């Protein structure tokens, strides 16, 4: 029976990998996801077939509780709220690892008689799982608006406190490793890990969330792999490592797209101190304001329009309005493309999901490298709720805090219309010189209302 179970685990992780291979293209992705889910079902069946299994009612209770919470949440969540949903799902996974490690500690009386690797893997899972759980909860709170999105921190003491908390967690774990059997040590490892998770994510601002979510995802994956090692479940090892790899790749991509190192982002506080830099550029230069009617005329007479969506589009739920506007423009013979910056929004690929929800063909969604050469041939760039990713200061102003970050070259197009709620600076607290360029016009207001107004003006033309 044990061999059979092990074979089922192999089958399960093969299906995970095969399923993920399907995710390389939109057409095969749905099937890929189903294949991975099938793998998961097989893995669960396998563990239930383990010899001497018991406590069935309690297992059923846990699964039922999870299903009751998970299914409605997944069914009803809005696409704009996807980042916080992913953060929450990620967090509970990490929490499960931490709980499992704690129970293992108790049932083995402090890992007495267990091989060293079980002990190391369990403790790693405990600390990392706890960090991931609490960090994800804070990320969820920030994205959901329960916790202010701006960086919250202790200033210069932050790093000291964080280092102490991490040292505390590792210290407790090492003490257990050296033979400490006191349950207090295990609670300490988990509690220090929790505090570390909270304190690391709190000072990180909203726009850095794509990196944070990816990083937490990677951490949960690694903790799952560690738990799998401790429990000798191969499917768990493989699944955890794949998630760890995926999370690490995404974290790296996001950090690169912001031209910032991962340690710098984790140190946080970005934007909090950006005020000084903003003053230099702001001055009292005037922006040119436009209205829906003029914007509609400009759009109608353009040959090519590039839409640059940002988090503002998500907040205003404007993706359907944008799609309607683009359709109307295409009927009038205007070519419409979308320029997607890798860190636009609050998680990797956030804009793509929103536009896909609104039925925008994904062929029209262009990556930064693909579209940047086209701005100079573009009559009009329509910036909808994006700010820092269009800031030319990142390219020209060595003094700017975001200098060196790859941006969308919106300023190269012949004309720019920026839809924005007000002249408030973006997340980074940095003024955007794009708004003062002679070819730029501002259309103030809620993104959705503005786009709808432009659409109706366009219809009236």
């Amino acid at each position, binding site marked *: 029976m044990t061999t059979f179970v092990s074979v089922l685990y192999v089958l399960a992780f093969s299906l995970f990998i095969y399923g993920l291979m399907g995710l390389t293209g939109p057409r095969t992705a749905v099937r890929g996801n189903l294949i991975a889910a099938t793998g998961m079902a097989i893995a669960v069946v396998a563990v239930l077939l383990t010899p001497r299994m018991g406590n069935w009612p309690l297992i059923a209770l846990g699964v039922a509780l999870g299903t009751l919470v998970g299914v409605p949440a997944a069914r009803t969540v809005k696409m704009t709220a996807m980042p916080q949903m992913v953060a929450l799902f990620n967090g509970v996974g990490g929490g499960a690892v931490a709980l499992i490690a704690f129970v293992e500690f108790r049932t083995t009386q402090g890992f007495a008689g267990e091989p060293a690797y079980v002990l190391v893997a369990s403790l790693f899972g405990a600390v990392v799982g706890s960090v991931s759980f609490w960090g994800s909860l804070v990320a969820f709170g920030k994205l959901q608006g329960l916790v202010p999105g701006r960086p919250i921190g202790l200033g210069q003491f932050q790093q000291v406190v964080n280092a102490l908390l991490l040292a505390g967690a590792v210290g407790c774990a090492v003490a257990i490793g050296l033979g400490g059997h006191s349950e207090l040590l295990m609670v300490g490892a988990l509690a220090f890990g929790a505090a570390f998770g909270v304190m690391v994510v709190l000072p990180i601002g909203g726009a850095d969330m794509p990196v944070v979510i990816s990083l937490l995802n990677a951490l949960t994956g690694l903790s799952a792999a560690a738990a799998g090692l401790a429990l000798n479940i191969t499917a768990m090892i493989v699944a955890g490592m794949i998630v760890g790899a995926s999370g690490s790749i995404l974290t790296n991509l996001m950090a690169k797209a912001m031209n910032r190192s991962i340690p710098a982002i984790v140190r946080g506080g970005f934007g909090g101190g950006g005020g000084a830099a903003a003053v230099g550029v702001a001055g009292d230069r005037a922006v040119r304001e436009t209205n829906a009617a003029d914007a509609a005329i400009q759009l109608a007479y353009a040959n090519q329009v590039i839409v640059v969506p940002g988090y503002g589009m998500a907040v205003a739920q404007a993706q359907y309005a944008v799609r309607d506007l683009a359709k109307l423009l295409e009927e009038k013979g205007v070519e419409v493309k979308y320029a997607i910056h890798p860190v636009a929004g609050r*998680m990797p690929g956030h804009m793509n999901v929103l536009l896909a929800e609104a039925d925008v063909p994904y062929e029209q969604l262009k990556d930064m490298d693909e579209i940047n050469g086209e701005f100079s041939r573009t009559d009009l760039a329509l910036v909808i709720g994006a700010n820092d990713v269009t800031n030319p200061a990142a390219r020209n102003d060595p003094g700017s805090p975001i200098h060196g970050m790859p941006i969308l070259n919106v300023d190269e197009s012949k004309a720019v219309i920026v839809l924005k709620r007000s002249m408030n600076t973006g997340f980074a607290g940095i003024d955007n010189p794009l708004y003062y360029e002679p070819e730029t016009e501002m259309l103030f207001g809620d993104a959705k209302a503005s786009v709808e107004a432009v659409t109706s003006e366009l219809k009236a033309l």
Partner: protein
Amino acid sequence: MLVANLAILVLAGFVGVAVISKVPNTLHTPLMSGTNAIHGIVVLGGILLLGTAATGVLEKILLVVAIAFGTINVVGGFLVTDRMLEMFKGRSPATSPAQARPSPNGAVR
């Protein structure tokens, strides 16, 4: 057992990097929620411990919570990924003929 499992761990890391690197930017959100669902596999750990090792009341309560957490992760993750991917699916030109299929009353949409 340890060495074999370590080998699996390392190889899985390389496989993960190889497979995930090929996923296009467009699908990064579904990728993230899909891999999220996959690490919900920790539910196995909860089930294994509850089914074979747990004795005390506290242990049992904690493991039920762990299983519930893991299940939320798995079920929610796969469902939400499926919802997202469905949105990506039918919008390409390759599948557009489906939209031109006559509806039951004979009219073309």
